[in-house]
């Protein structure tokens, strides 16, 4: 893997966690992990209102040849800017602002990272569509990230029961990789948790888990 692609994968991993589920309900905590062969990530946030959450997370990532390593530690604020409730659907606009440190084995010290993002999504009990964009800004780092997610569930269930979904994600980091990564994933949701598993077009496996408590 080239350095540019490794950095892209690193930043994509951080963004992926955000789009999978920005926050839980009021007074809840959301924990999430995103695991693949090239990165490991975990974060947690606390929803102190139904619309606001504060969180922190960490990520380690390496390139295929293990020569390039990256680490990010971030605190972030998530805000539900607007929600439209429809008879059988909801549509949301989310804002996220992350601040943290970026370290790598190809430069010395820690660079301050700013990462504002915006997500728009639409969801019914059977269909999910989301668009997410995030800017990554640090000294020597200036990248734009965009992702689209669309999925459907095979059938409705009681909400205490496990519901399977098929989700397709396309994502790209401008300025780092011109390749769009396509990842079909099977998602299982049951009340306060979900797991996702899939593989991108290069065969790299990906496993996500989230739990709200």
């Amino acid at each position, binding site marked *: 893997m080239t350095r540019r692609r490794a950095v892209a994968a690193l930043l994509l991993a951080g963004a992926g966690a955000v789009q999978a589920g920005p926050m*839980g309900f009021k007074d809840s905590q959301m924990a999430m992990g995103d695991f693949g062969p090239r990165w490991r990530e975990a974060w947690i946030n606390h929803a102190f209102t*139904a*619309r606001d959450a504060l969180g922190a997370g960490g990520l380690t990532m390496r390139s295929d040849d293990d020569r390039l390593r990256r680490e990010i530690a971030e605190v972030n604020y998530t805000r539900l800017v607007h929600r439209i*409730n429809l008879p059988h659907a909801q549509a949301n606009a989310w804002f996220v602002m992350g601040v943290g440190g970026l370290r790598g084995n190809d430069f010395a010290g820690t660079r301050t990272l700013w990462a504002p993002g915006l997500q728009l999504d639409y*969801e*019914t009990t059977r269909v999910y569509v989301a668009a997410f964009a995030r800017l990554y800004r640090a000294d020597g780092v200036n990248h734009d990230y965009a992702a689209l997610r669309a999925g459907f569930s095979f059938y*409705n269930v009681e*909400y205490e029961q496990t*519901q399977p979904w098929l989700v397709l994600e396309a994502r790209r980091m401008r300025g780092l990789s011109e390749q769009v990564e396509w990842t079909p994933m099977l998602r299982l949701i049951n009340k306060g948790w979900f797991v996702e598993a899939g593989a991108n077009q290069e065969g790299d496996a990906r496993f996500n888990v989230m739990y709200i408590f």
Partner: protein
Amino acid sequence: MKRPLTLFAAALALTAAQAATTTKLTVNGMVCAFCAQGIEKKLKAMPATEAVYVNLADKIVAVQIKDGQTLDIDKVRAEVKDAGYDVVKVETVADTVEALRAASKARP
């Protein structure tokens, strides 16, 4: 003749009210398990709540009331609204939440 009929109707209404144990809300925007989990947790914490049933497809939240207790409907409505969803209808029904669940499962 009119007076006995009025009294009979009033008695029927009173009987229905006494038998009613469940408040049923129709909620717009409640489409995900995480949405339902938050609402259920808040409503279960209310002292008059016996049981809660949430059905996303039918978009209903049902709160069964403990015997001899009164549920603050405005507070229930406020909890759902505060969670980020719109309550479009509130009914009082005589069914338990288990009966509502069974009826939902029985539908094709």
